[in-house]
C-alpha cells in the first residue's frame, strides 16, 4: 500500500495562480474525495498530480518525489482517469485497456505476453471480458466508465486518480462504479483520490475529504468534519441541511431558500 503525500503544491496557469499551498496526506489504501464548487481547482489538482500540468511543491508516493521522475516511472506509480477521456471510437476495448501498459513497454517495442495477461485479467475483473472486441464507439456511458477504469488499472499503479468518475452516469451506474472502485481499493490496497461533485456520494465512499475553494484548501478531515452546513453554505453558496446517515456518515440535502 502506498501513501500519497503532497505539500505546498501550487499551479500557475497563464500567470494566474490556480492552486496554492495545497497539502494532503492519504494513507495507503485510503480514499480521499476532493470537493469544491465549479472552478475551485479540483480537476487542476488531479491533473497536476498526474503530471499533465506543471506545478511547484512536493508530491511523494511512498517518499518517492514523483515530480522528478520520468513520465514512464511516474505512470507506474500514479494512474489517472480524466473527467472526459478521449475515446477513439473504433479502438477495441481490449486495445484501449492495453494502453495502460504503455509505461511497461519499451519505447519502440511491442506488448508482451505479460501485458496481454494483465489486460485480460483486468477486463475479467471488471466484467468486460465479453466486451473485449467491442469498439469504444459502441459502448454505453456506464460501460465506457468501466473501460476507462480498466485502462487505469492495467497501469498497476498503487495510486489511482479519478476525476469525476460518475459524470454523466445515472444513479444506478454511479453506485456501480463507486462500489467497484471501493472493492478494488479494498482488494488491492489501492490509494484512491477522486473529485466528486455529488457531496452525499463523496461522503458515503471517501474516508477523508478535502474542500477546495478558490484554489486553496478550505477544510479537510473525515467527511463529518468537512460536510457541515456552514462550510457548504459558505463555499458552494448553497442552502443545505446535513443529516447523519447510517454509519455516522453525513448526508447532504438541498433546501429551498
Amino acid at each position, binding site marked *: *500500500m502506498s501513501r500519497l503525500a503532497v505539500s505546498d503544491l501550487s499551479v500557475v496557469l497563464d500567470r494566474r495562480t490556480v492552486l496554492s499551498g495545497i497539502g494532503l496526506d492519504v494513507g495507503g489504501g485510503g480514499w480521499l474525495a476532493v470537493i469544491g464548487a465549479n472552478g475551485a481547482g479540483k480537476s487542476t489538482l488531479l*491533473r497536476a498530480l*498526474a*503530471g*499533465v500540468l506543471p506545478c511547484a511543491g512536493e508530491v511523494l508516493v511512498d517518499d518517492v518525489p514523483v515530480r522528478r521522475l*520520468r*513520465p*514512464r*516511472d*511516474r*505512470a*507506474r506509480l*500514479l*494512474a*489517472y482517469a*480524466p473527467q472526459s*477521456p*478521449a*475515446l*477513439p*471510437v*473504433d*479502438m*477495441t*476495448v*481490449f*486495445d484501449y485497456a492495453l*494502453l*495502460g501498459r*504503455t*509505461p511497461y*513497454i519499451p*519505447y*519502440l517495442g*511491442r*506488448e508482451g*505476453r505479460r501485458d*496481454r*495477461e*494483465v*489486460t*485480460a*485479467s*483486468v*477486463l*475479467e*475483473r471488471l466484467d468486460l*471480458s465479453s466486451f*473485449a*472486441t467491442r469498439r469504444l464507439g459502441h459502448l454505453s456511458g456506464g460501460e465506457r466508465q468501466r473501460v476507462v477504469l480498466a485502462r487505469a*488499472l*492495467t*497501469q*498497476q*499503479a*498503487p495510486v489511482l486518480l479519478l476525476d469525476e468518475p460518475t459524470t454523466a452516469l445515472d444513479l444506478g451506474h454511479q453506485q456501480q462504479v463507486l462500489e467497484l472502485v471501493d472493492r478494488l481499493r479494498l482488494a*488491492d*490496497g*489501492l490509494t484512491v483520490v477522486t473529485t466528486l461533485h455529488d457531496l452525499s456520494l463523496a461522503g458515503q465512499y471517501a474516508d477523508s475529504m478535502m474542500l477546495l475553494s478558490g484554489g486553496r484548501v478550505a477544510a479537510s478531515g473525515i467527511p463529518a468534519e468537512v460536510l457541515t452546513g456552514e462550510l457548504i453554505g459558505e463555499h458552494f453558496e448553497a442552502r443545505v441541511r446535513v443529516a447523519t446517515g447510517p454509519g455516522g456518515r453525513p448526508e447532504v440535502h438541498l433546501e429551498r431558500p
Partner: protein
Amino acid sequence: MTDLPRSSGVPGGGTAGQAARLSPAVTAAAVALLLASMLAGLLVGAADIAPRSVLIQLLDWLPFVSADSGLAPVELSLLTEIRLPRVLLAAIVGGLLAVAGAGYQGVFRNPLADPYLLGAAAGAGLTTTAAIVFSKGDGEAIGIPAAAFVGAVGGVLLAYALGNAAGRGGGTATLVLAGVAVTSFLTAIQTFLQQLRVEELQRIYAWILGNVGGGWGQVTLVAPYAIVSVTVMLLHGRLLDVLSVGDDEAVTLGLNAARVRLVVLFAASLATAAAVAVSGLIGFVGIVVPHVVRRLTGSSYRVVLPISLIGGAAFLVLADLIARTVLAPAELPIGVVTAFFGAPFFVAVLRMTRRVET
C-alpha cells in the same frame, strides 16, 4: 499489491479482443495487389512489346531460372531502362505519400491531414522551384531533395501554427483550412518565382504536374530517404495509437507525446519531400489510401501505416498505368489521374466524417 492478475481462468496470451494487429492474410492480400499492379505496369506501355516475351524475360531474371524471351536489344533496354524504373519509382512515391499521409493523420489526430492539404507539398514545390530557378548548372540533383525537405517541413509548421492561432483546439476543419491558406500562399510565391525564369517554365511545369518517368537516377536518389522515413514511421505505429487518446492522457501513460509527434512529423515530412523531389506534386494519394485502409482494417496505426505503404504503392503504379495509356501515345500527368479519382473520394470522406461527428 500491484499484482493484479490474480484472478483465475485467464488464458495465457489473452488473444481475446486483439483486433488491431497486422494479420498475415491482410499483408498477403496487399502485397499480391502490389505485385499484380507492378506486373501490369511492366506488361503495358507505349512501345509494342509482346507481353508474353516480357513475362518470359521476368522469369529469366529470377535466380536459378533461365529462359529465352526473344526480346530484341532495343526492347530489352526499353524494359530495363524505362518501364522497370518507372514502375519502381511509382511504387516508391505512392508508398511514401500514403504512409506520410497516415503519419500526419496520426500526429494531428485528424483524418483529413494529408501532405498535399497541409502545405507540405506546396512548401516543397516552392523551394524546389527556387532551386531550379536559382541553380545555374545542373548540379541540382543533390540540392533538390534538401530544398524539398526544408520546404515540406516549413509548409507543415506554417499550417500547424496558423491552425493553432486561428482557433485553439479548432480541430479537423481549422487545420485543413489553414493548410489550404498556406498552400495558396506558397503556390503564389512559387508562381512568381517561376515567371522570373520563363525559359525554365516547361521544366518546372512538367515537374509540378507530376511524373514518375525519371529513370534509375531518381530511384537511387529517393531510396535512402524512403528507407529512413518509412522505417521511422513504421516503428512508431504503436505510439501513434497511444497518442490517439490525446497528449495529456498519453503523458499520464508515460509517453513523451511531444517527442513522438516531432519524430513522426519529421519522418512524414522527409517522406513527402523525397516523393515531391523526384516526382513533382501528386495529390490525394496521402488521404485516399489511408482512408480506404482504415475502412477495411480498422484504425490502428500498426496496421494503417504498413498497409497504406503497400496500398499507396499499388495505387500509384495503377494511376501511372492509366496516365500513360489513356491518351497513348501522349501521356497524361499522373497528378491529373490521382486528382480525378481522389477529389470525389475526398468529398465522400468529408461527408462520412461529418456524419460520424454529429
